[in-house]
C-alpha cells in the first residue's frame, strides 16, 4: 500500500539552484496539498489542488510553483532556491476538503537544505 510517495527524501541545494519535489498518490484522491514545516513549528500550506488542472495558492506560495496534469501527481517546483526555503516539505492528499471525510494522508516528507 504505497499511499503518498515523496521523492527525494533529502536534498541539499545551493542558493539560486532549481529543483522539483515529486509527489504521487495511488488512492485516486482529488485533493492534494503541499506544506512546509520549519523546525518546531506547525505546517504552512504552500499550494493545493482540488483536481487535475486546478491549483490554488495557500498561505506561503512565494518562491514556489506547482502543476497538476494528472490526478496522481502534484510536483512542487523551486525556481531560485533561497536559504529561507530550508525546511521539511510534506505532500498530502484527501478525497475531499470538507468535514469528517477530509482525511489527509501525508507523505514521509522531503528534508531540504539551501546553503
Amino acid at each position, binding site marked *: 500500500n504505497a499511499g*503518498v510517495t515523496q521523492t527525494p527524501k533529502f536534498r541539499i541545494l545551493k542558493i539560486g539552484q532549481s529543483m522539483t519535489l515529486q509527489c504521487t498518490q495511488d488512492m485516486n484522491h482529488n*485533493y492534494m*496539498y503541499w*506544506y512546509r514545516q520549519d523546525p*518546531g*513549528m*506547525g*505546517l*504552512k*500550506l504552500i499550494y*493545493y489542488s*482540488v483536481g487535475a488542472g486546478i491549483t*490554488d495558492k*495557500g*498561505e506561503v506560495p512565494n518562491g514556489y510553483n506547482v502543476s497538476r496534469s494528472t490526478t496522481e501527481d502534484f510536483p512542487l517546483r523551486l525556481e531560485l532556491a533561497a536559504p529561507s526555503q530550508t525546511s521539511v516539505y*510534506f505532500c*498530502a492528499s484527501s478525497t475531499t*476538503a*470538507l*468535514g*469528517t471525510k*477530509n*482525511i*489527509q494522508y*501525508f*507523505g*514521509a*516528507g522531503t528534508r531540504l537544505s539551501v546553503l
Partner: protein
Amino acid sequence: TQLLEQSPQFLSIQEGENLTVYCNSSSVFSSLQWYRQEPGEGPVLLVTVVTGGEVKKLKRLTFQFGDARKDSSLHITAAQPGDTGLYLCAGGPESSASKIIFGSGTRLSIRP
C-alpha cells in the same frame, strides 16, 4: 490572516498525569482536526470534529469542538510515554474550507 493558536507550546509531565491542549482562533471553522506527528514522519490524523459542541473520544483521548466552532481542546487521561509527540490542530476556515490551516503545535513529553 486566519490563525490557529495552540497552547501550551511545550508540555512535559509524569506518566499517569492528565493534560489538556488548547487550539483557539478568532475565525469560525467548518471542521477541525487533531494530528500527532512523530519525529521524521508526516502527521497522522487522530480525529475530525465538525459540529459545534461535539465531543469525541479515542481511548484515553477526548476531543471537544467549541460551541461557536472557533476553538477545540484535546484532553489526555493517564498519559503514557507512547503519547509523546507533536500534537497539531488544523482546520478549514468556513470562508475557504480547502485552505487548511495548521496550528504551531504542542510538543508533549511524557516521563516514565
